[in-house]
């Protein structure tokens, strides 16, 4: 009883808040923090062009899913795709909006950027606490001719629940069976070894001050702060450096068409040039909308972003979705229905 009263009050206050925000031709959304810089840059440009603003609360993927499920926002955003069964249960649809990658970074004296080479299984064992020294023979085998110090490895991980954690652990679980069994994938996992730090900045600064530290951050963050990244071995057995091109290569091989509910995580994709830890950030909307005008406004914005947002995304070191995927998504929007039928024509 108490719970219901509380829930009603909460919903009422949220609806009031959302209602007030909607009044001035605004698109409301909430969710992931990872794509927030891109979304807000798009929103600025879009507002200059059309006068329609966007109110996006970067409260985290979990919060975004909660708000879209409670119908307090027009769209939700999540770094991890929702499972097709959950989509169906909640009457939602999802599509990828923008892509990025996760990049391992290290602090090793004497090694230049990208000089350290690792493969997925080794990385998984480092994070599982099984490989503890940098001159371990498995690391040496991948780095012939590189002078590796005999320092202890200090793995640094993201302490708070995040989409970055999801991508990274999803990849490690894919390439290492023992990692999948003992640690598993998720937004928050219990890391057996190393140090937890807060956000990209916390991980980067912890790695920077720890000799022998290794961490993982979003590509945009690694690039803008000029961190010492690791060259990774991909599924095809080739070593690749993280770059917009290698993310695009991973995305290009992704088979969105045959992914039910567009549930697709782009880690460990085939292709010689593919960066192995790539992922898309997703938008969630209801299939049956109560306010078709608001839904139409949001879809018009996303349509605009697909067509005109690529340069803005790349300038922030994010990867725009390829045109063929965008077309596929646009076709999929036809499933969204309001009281008067199809919202997107």
């Amino acid at each position, binding site marked *: 009883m108490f719970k219901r009263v509380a829930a009603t009050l909460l919903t009422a206050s949220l609806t009031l808040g959302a209602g007030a925000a909607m009044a001035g031709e605004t698109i409301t959304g909430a969710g992931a923090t990872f794509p927030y810089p891109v979304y807000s840059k798009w929103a600025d440009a879009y507002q200059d062009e059309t006068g329609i603003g966007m109110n996006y609360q970067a409260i985290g993927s979990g919060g975004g899913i909660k708000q879209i499920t409670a119908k307090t926002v027009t769209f939700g955003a999540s770094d991890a795709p929702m499972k097709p069964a959950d989509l169906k249960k909640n009457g939602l649809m999802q599509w990828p909006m923008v892509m990025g990658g996760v990049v391992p970074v290290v602090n090793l004296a004497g090694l230049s950027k990208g000089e350290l080479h690792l493969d997925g299984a080794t990385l998984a064992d480092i994070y599982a606490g099984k490989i503890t020294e940098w001159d371990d023979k498995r690391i040496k085998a991948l780095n012939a001719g590189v002078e590796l110090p005999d320092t202890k490895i200090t793995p*640094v991980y993201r302490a708070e*629940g995040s989409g970055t954690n999801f991508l990274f652990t999803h990849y490690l679980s894919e390439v290492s069976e023992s990692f999948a069994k003992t640690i598993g994938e998720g937004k928050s996992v219990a890391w057996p070894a190393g*140090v937890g730090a807060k956000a990209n900045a916390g991980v980067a600064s912890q790695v920077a001050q720890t000799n022998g530290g290794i961490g993982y951050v979003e590509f945009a963050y690694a690039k803008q702060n000029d961190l010492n990244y690791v060259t990774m071995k991909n599924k095809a057995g080739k070593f690749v450096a993280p770059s917009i091109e290698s993310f695009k290569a991973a995305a290009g091989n992704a088979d969105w068409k045959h992914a039910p509910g567009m549930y697709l995580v782009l880690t460990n994709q085939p292709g010689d040039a593919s960066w192995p830890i790539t992922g898309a950030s997703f938008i969630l909307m209801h299939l049956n909308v109560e306010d078709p005008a608001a839904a139409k406004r949001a879809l018009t914005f996303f349509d605009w972003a697909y067509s005109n947002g690529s340069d803005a995304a790349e300038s922030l070191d994010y990867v725009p979705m390829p045109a063929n995927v965008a077309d596929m998504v646009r076709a999929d929007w036809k499933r969204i229905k309001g009281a008067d039928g199809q919202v997107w024509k």
Partner: protein
Amino acid sequence: MGYTMKDASVSPSHLLGAEKGELQMLRRNGRLDRLFSGSTFFFAVTVLVLLGAIMVTLFISGWPAFSELGASFFTGTRWAANVNDFGILPAVYGTLVTSFIAILVAVPISFGIAIFLTELCPVFLRRPLGTMVELLAGVPSIIYGMWGMEVLAPFLQRHLPDVFPAGTGLTTAGLILAVMIIPFITAITRDVMVTVPPMLRESAYGLGCTTWEVVRNVVFPSVRAGMVGGVILGLGRALGETMAVTFVIGNNLFYKATVTGQGTSIAALIANQFPEADGLQRSALLALGFLLFVITFIVLAIARLMLRRMDRSKA
């Protein structure tokens, strides 16, 4: 005079010689008084109701975790949200250890500062020094967190690399907490120490006591309750501190019987995971919040009990 307001409002005819205007004023004052006491009572009760409501809400929202996880919730040694394995031991252990370290470090320093300020300090320094300590209490906790991450952790790591290989950990968090609670304990201890009548002090000095003997045998015994109160306030803050701790505690979610290594605390764990939590994880975090409530309550109750026992043995 001589009549209380209550009498006046009940039977004004008893007020011999009071004029009509005066009676009216008295009646109005009576109403105001009742209104005032009523509203203060209301505010006091509101606090209690709020506290109760928070506890009940936390318990109800945490109930699924209690019922679904059962005993493993209390005995589990890791908090792995992705596999729905929630054990509170690492967080409870970290909370208690960091707070204990904080109290261990902060109490002697705070008492020392307070003794210096009240007994030894040159008069012209008293004010600026006291104000400085109080200012320390006003520093936002996020600033302490940043200082801990950028200054204290690297410092420990550089100078004691064997003990603090990564700089962060339970001890680092305990040290930050100590710095945070020193101003509270100091301010309260100083305030209660100045309440000791100068006559008592001067008599003791007159008998030939040293400063230490005066502090130890005259000042401390008469203000013990107040000092313990200050420590309890500090402890309460240490148990629930979130932001600063999250930055430096290392956030390891496994239970390890370590004092200098990485761990987590209840508040830090909630702060890290709540925004992205749903389902059982969310409920487990709320249950953890309820437990923090209970732990704080128990610790404070023990402190009160100790105080009472001390008073009794003295009597």
